């Protein structure tokens, strides 16, 4: 195991926020991905979608002003920006499945070298399966970004040749943002676009089961 911490979660989220073009419609998964919203650079206007029926998600409300009926997909209280709109679940997933949401940022258990994603089940026998909207998002949104730690808490690689966990979708991931590197999924395999300054290529490859190429 390597002791490098690499970028903070906010730093990773910031990289994603920079890569998402001005004017995009974006859905953020529950947990880490939610950090992206707070890291959008000044002057860039991004519209956030939450699959439970709101386009134009604003920042969290001030304490005491939470509304039980204004929440995001993670069931956390949010606000609505001026110009927002509410709609029902079939319309919300029409936006997703129909390819209208430009970017989606999700967490992951595993990503494979061909961009397969496993993020809904660790396949444990007694666990209750729960999928939510993840499979719809990867099936419908053209640009799937993954935000995650590069390895598991026990040091296992999360970027693998083949996912061993049940898949959320096949060949769906576009770019993986970890604490150690930014990696594009290309037709020729995984290509490292950026590497943390405390990392060298060999160490990064050692922490990654799938083989990496490096942009020169």
């Amino acid at each position, binding site marked *: 195991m390597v002791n490098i911490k690499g970028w903070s979660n906010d730093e990773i989220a910031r990289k994603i926020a920079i890569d998402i073009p001005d004017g995009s419609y974006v859905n953020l998964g529950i947990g880490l991905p939610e950090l992206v919203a707070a890291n959008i650079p000044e002057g860039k206007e991004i519209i956030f979608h939450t699959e439970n029926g709101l386009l134009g998600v604003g920042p969290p409300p001030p304490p005491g002003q939470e509304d039980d009926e204004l929440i995001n997909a993670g069931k956390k209280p949010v606000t609505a920006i001026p110009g927002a709109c509410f709609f029902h*679940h079939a319309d919300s997933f029409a936006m997703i*499945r129909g390819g209208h949401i430009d970017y989606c940022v999700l967490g992951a258990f595993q990503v494979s070298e061909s961009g397969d994603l496993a993020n809904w089940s660790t396949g444990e026998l007694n666990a209750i399966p729960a999928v939510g909207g993840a499979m719809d998002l990867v099936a419908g949104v053209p640009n799937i970004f993954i935000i995650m730690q590069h390895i598991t808490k026990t040091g296992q690689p999360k970027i693998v040749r083949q996912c061993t966990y049940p898949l*959320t979708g096949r060949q769906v991931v576009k770019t993986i943002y970890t604490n150690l590197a930014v990696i594009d999924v290309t037709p020729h395999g995984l290509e490292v676009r950026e590497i943390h300054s405390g990392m060298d290529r060999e160490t990064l490859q050692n922490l990654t089961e799938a083989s990496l190429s490096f942009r020169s």
Partner: protein
Amino acid sequence: MINKVVVTAAEAVADIFDGAKIMIGGFGEAGSPIELIHALIDQGAKNLTVISNNTGNGHVGLAALIENLQVKKMICSFPRTAQSVVFPELYAKGMIELELVPQGTLAERIRAGGAGIPAFYTPTTIGTPLAEGKEIRHIDGKSYVLEYALKADFALIKCKTADRYGNLLYNKTARNFGPIMCMAAKTSIVQTSSLVEPGEIDPENVVTPGIFVKRVVKISNPLSENQLLRENRRYPW
């Protein structure tokens, strides 16, 4: 005169029968028709199949209905949430069935049920374990699974404003599954915080047209599930 208003929640759910298929609105707490669910607990119908995005929280509302062993099977997308304790326990004991459906497919199947579309193709689940055993079809070079419509005998829905025709307005993200479940159920039963005269809702703004609604009950100050959870309440109390 058309008047879909019934006076009590008990009256509204009185004819729900053993073995009925029931859609229950809500995404987590938002939109959960807690008074109607409690009336159904009092009423006691058993062997229900419930279609709802989640499985309830704590020991009130949908969780209490499950805890009261009235539900044989859940059809949902996300059966565990931070505060969901009842379903996981019964599921581990094999005392309740689960059909897991991705959220967008769940919504589309319900909408199809209401729209007279018996089946449709969707890209969701292709390449995953949830597509196993399903018919797959290639259209224009992409793969899709065949999914069937979901219908129900009853729907229990919460809204903000209603009139005697059953025209409905919802509140923010509490809208979620309400409109499509009203479409897909033979008998849609709606609790509303506010009851107005026909015409008071601007015809341009109606979210659920009255044609999809059978009964409306006024519940002026619906309980807050979050509040009940904080107070550790259990239904029946």
